[in-house]
């Protein structure tokens, strides 16, 4: 009796049942009239003084979820951390044979500028902290692969927790000012959101770049 095949058959049966359940749920959901929070968000948007509803949802209305998400990201970065640093830096193949060194060096500044502009524009147009963080991580990866940076990423230990720290500080400051954790005083809400977003973009870039370097270092050591 092949254990693996029996397991696969059982999982296939359960998956079919799960598929049927999903289809039934979704079709019944879709037959009901659409209930959306779009109008509620649009109505509350002037109060948060940002133009982008997604940014307002992420950092104002659901700010607590985003705070917890920064904690999750930091945990993932920390779990990969023991391999980063000097050990990983020596094991990575720098410069990578697939990235031309001079082209890489030229690319870094435009990528960073794109990240900064996506971050700034994200207050009123599509964009924001997470997108800017991902683009910033790309800049760090190009920095590493083109051989421009040879030593470990500077300030990684300090900058990775910065998003969580800034978010917590702002939250407790709001608690002191308005009596509600993360209850922004409405006169300064846009500026506070931008502060948190800047810290978030930097931290997300650092964490994602650190994860890449861990993997590249492990792979480099085994190659």
């Amino acid at each position, binding site marked *: 009796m092949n254990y693996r095949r029996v397991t696969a058959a059982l999982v296939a049966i359960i998956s079919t049942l799960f598929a049927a359940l999903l289809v039934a749920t*979704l079709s019944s959901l879709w037959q009901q009239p659409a209930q959306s*929070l779009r109008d509620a968000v649009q109505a509350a948007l002037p109060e948060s003084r940002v133009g982008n509803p997604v940014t307002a949802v992420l950092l104002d209305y659901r700010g607590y979820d985003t705070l917890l998400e920064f904690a999750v990201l930091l945990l993932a970065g920390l779990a990969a951390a023991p391999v980063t640093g000097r050990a990983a830096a020596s094991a990575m193949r720098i410069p990578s044979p697939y990235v031309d060194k001079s082209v890489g060096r030229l690319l870094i500044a435009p990528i960073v500028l794109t990240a900064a502009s996506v971050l700034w524009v994200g207050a009123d147009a599509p964009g924001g902290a997470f997108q800017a963080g991902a683009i910033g991580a790309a800049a760090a990866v190009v920095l590493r692969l083109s051989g421009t940076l040879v030593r470990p990423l500077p300030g990684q230990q300090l900058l990775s927790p910065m998003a969580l720290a800034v978010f917590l500080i702002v939250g407790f400051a709001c608690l002191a000012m308005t009596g509600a954790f993360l209850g922004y005083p409405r006169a300064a809400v846009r500026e506070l959101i931008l502060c948190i977003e800047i810290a978030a973009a930097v931290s997300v870039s650092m964490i994602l770049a650190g994860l890449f370097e*861990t993997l590249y270092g492990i792979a480099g050591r085994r190659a």
Partner: protein
Amino acid sequence: MTVGVATLIYAGVGAVLVVIGAYHVIVLQHPLRKLVALNVFGSGIFLILVAGGARTPGSSADPVPHAMVLTGLVVAVSATALGLVLALRLESADSAGERGDAGP
């Protein structure tokens, strides 16, 4: 084709991806393939979320599912990276003979 039917098709594709990803996460043996299946599973869920947010009549969509998908994307990327670190560590431990069981 009404908006409702179009978004239902998107949600249906998302459901298909969810089921395919869930089945293969359990059944596949190699950790890297499991991670890819997990990503497919996540992409299916994001599709369902975004399709649900697009159901509102009118031009603009519900921004709350969009925000959820944004955070979910970044968390999925870092979870995949963490899974890759663990898979590589598992493989190096396996080749060094550290594992106690006689697993695959």
